[in-house]
């Protein structure tokens, strides 16, 4: 028989997972909208950000309620603490995605400066990082979560590559500066999303092993 605490935690878990799924969708849809100059999709992304915000507040409230009324211990306590932080990271990811979608809206149907190849790749990596994090969480497999940390480096490298490429474009023809800056912003956002995914992985390790690896 599940205890009261376990039941509440399971409900909380389901919300956090829902939020995770949604943020993966955010990443995918925002980049997809930019790639295909799909303003409709972008508008949808911007719109659903409020739903993310609502979920974030709800999860925060739930966590605090459990902490105060149930006073969980050991692994349950770590779970709630991890969720509190993961929650913020997920919300930040959604925000960053919204800013990417807004870039699509700004372009308003015009194709991006160049066909997007590396940015969707970054998005794919970020999504699989998140996937891995939550799989690690479900399976209590900290080794899997640690794999995520290395994946963040790939995103960082791609980001630097995009920087270089866009700088070379700008020096060639200065009139594309605004388009290039837009892409640089997007790439930077993706890089930050990678960082948040990495934070989540660290939280997952903390939840499973009870050790903090964020400053190693």
């Amino acid at each position, binding site marked *: 028989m599940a205890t009261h605490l376990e039941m509440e935690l*399971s409900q909380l*878990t389901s919300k956090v997972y829902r939020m995770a*799924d949604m943020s993966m969708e955010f990443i*995918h849809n925002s980049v997809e909208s930019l790639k295909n100059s799909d303003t409709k999709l972008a508008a949808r992304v911007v719109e659903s950000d409020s739903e993310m915000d609502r979920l974030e507040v709800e999860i925060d409230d739930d966590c605090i309620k459990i902490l105060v009324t149930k006073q969980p211990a050991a692994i349950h306590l770590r779970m709630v603490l991890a969720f509190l932080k993961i929650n913020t990271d997920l919300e930040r990811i959604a925000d960053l995605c919204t800013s990417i979608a807004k870039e699509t809206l700004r372009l308003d149907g015009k194709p991006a400066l160049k066909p997007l190849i590396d940015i969707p790749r970054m998005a794919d990596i970020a999504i699989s990082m998140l996937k891995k994090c939550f*799989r690690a969480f479900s*399976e209590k497999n900290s080794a899997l979560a640690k794999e995520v940390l290395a994946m963040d480096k790939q995103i960082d490298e791609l980001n630097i590559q995009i920087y270089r490429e866009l700088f070379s474009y700008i020096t060639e023809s200065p009139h594309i500066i605004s388009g290039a800056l837009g892409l640089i912003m997007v790439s930077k956002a993706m890089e930050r999303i990678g960082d948040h995914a990495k934070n989540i992985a660290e939280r997952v390790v903390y939840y499973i092993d009870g050790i903090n690896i964020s400053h190693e």
Partner: protein
Amino acid sequence: MKTKKVRNKIILYSSFILIFMVFFFLWFITASVYQSHLGILEKEMVLKLNLMEHSNGPFASGKKAVLQEADRKFFTDISHVLGQRITVVDRKGKVVYDSDVRDISSMDNHRDREEIMNAMESGRGRSIRYSDTLGIDMLYVAKLSGDYIIRIAKPLYDINSSLTDIRYKIIISGIMAGIISIILVIYFSNKISRPIGEAINFAQIFSNGDFSKRIMNYSDDDIGTLQKSLNKLADTIVGKINSLLLEQKKLELTIDSIHDGIALIDTGRWIQIMNASFRRILDIDTDSARGVYFQVIRSSPLNAIIELSLESGQPGCREITLLNGTSCEILIIPISDYSGIQGILLSLHDITERKKIDEIKADLIGNMSHELKTPVAILKGYLETMGQYLGDRKMSMDILGKAIANVDRQNTLINDILKLNRLEKSHDFYMEKINLAEVVETCISLLKPKADNINLEITSDIRDLDRLFSCNRFLAEEVIFNIVDNAINYNTRGGKINIRTAESDSLITLEIRDTGIGIPRESLDRIFERFYRVDKSRSRDTGGTGLGLSIVKHAAELLKWTIDAQSDINGTSFFIRIKTA
């Protein structure tokens, strides 16, 4: 809780019985020894009294009312000889003589003493009493003789000490017997309980899931029968389990072999069943197979649908697109019994292919109508213009030429579509012996004018192909023509095309290499799709519709040739591999 062992019970109970028996015998033997001892003593004392009565002492007559000095002396002597206390009491109970007491006047009246009372009534009496004077149990025997009652007393020293001795021996031998019999009991109870232990052990191992063990030696009693039945039971269970496993395996295989994804989720949100296709479609890793659905499935629209259906219990059908681009038709079948909904059965049908085909069809119709309409419109324009300039012969000829070019274009497109249709549908291409070198030459010569237009240089070394191959001329031409055509179309002015062969054991590779614009890596495996064009705008310029390589693919399949392409910044190579054996 530890269960009590049969063996321990047996030992405990038999020890109780044993201890009880020892004490019982102890009591019984002591009591009977004491009784018989007492009987002997009493008889002896009665004999002594009789002897006194019949001896010739002064007292013998018993008629004298008052005890004489001589009588006293007689008693004192006898008391000395016998070593026993002698007391004489008259009928009123007054002590008239006592061998151990000098001053008889101080003694109590003895009338109420039990032995005296009995002697007065029946002539003889006896009793055992604790004597305060001597601090010991005394046996008193009294006899009525004339007006007097003579009583002798004997301390029970002997009898007590011999009883202690006997008790001691009985206790020692009792303890010995107890030890021996407890050892025996332990031995026998072990013997009885060992097979029980074995049976229990076996049952425990079996219920823990090791079905291979059996009880090896049967004991020769009821327990043996029990052991045999246990073994038989185990065999039956293993048989049942195996057949169940087989059934389950069959079911699993069946479910797994279904192409659609199938999963069963209960109201506790647990995934109960999930087949291989379900995992494949949703990209679920095998080791996270079982679990709460929202921890296993990473798709928020699907999870939302599942949650909703679990709550409402309504059947439904939806279409969703997963993040990896797969489109799925989801069928939800609630499973319920009288007590309400038990779970839902989810069936995922991958409709990506179908959607693609739909798109292609829509594309095709769009493309076709565009491709068909444009030349027709142009043609109409030309013909109308021609009508106006019929008199101007040169002008008319010019326009006519353009009109014909458009008709040609139209013709090619229609032919391509028809060809593709034919290649897809029919397999009735007969094989003939043809020289492939000739086929290649024909294609080159057909395309030569086009190549010259942009100053392309075509070089070829195809001696390996200068022999007869079993294949179909039409199909072979389609393959080579289209590839060379592309090599020209996607080349740059002044570029090169090189056609050469390489032969190894049973394989000839025909390579068509160009110095053109190349194909991006991510497009390389898509160019054989219908209507797929890397850069839509450029292909339009070349008049391409994206059907060429699909025709190549189909034709090559029919010929059992394999085609692959490589590309880098220097250009593109197509390899046609032809089996010679």
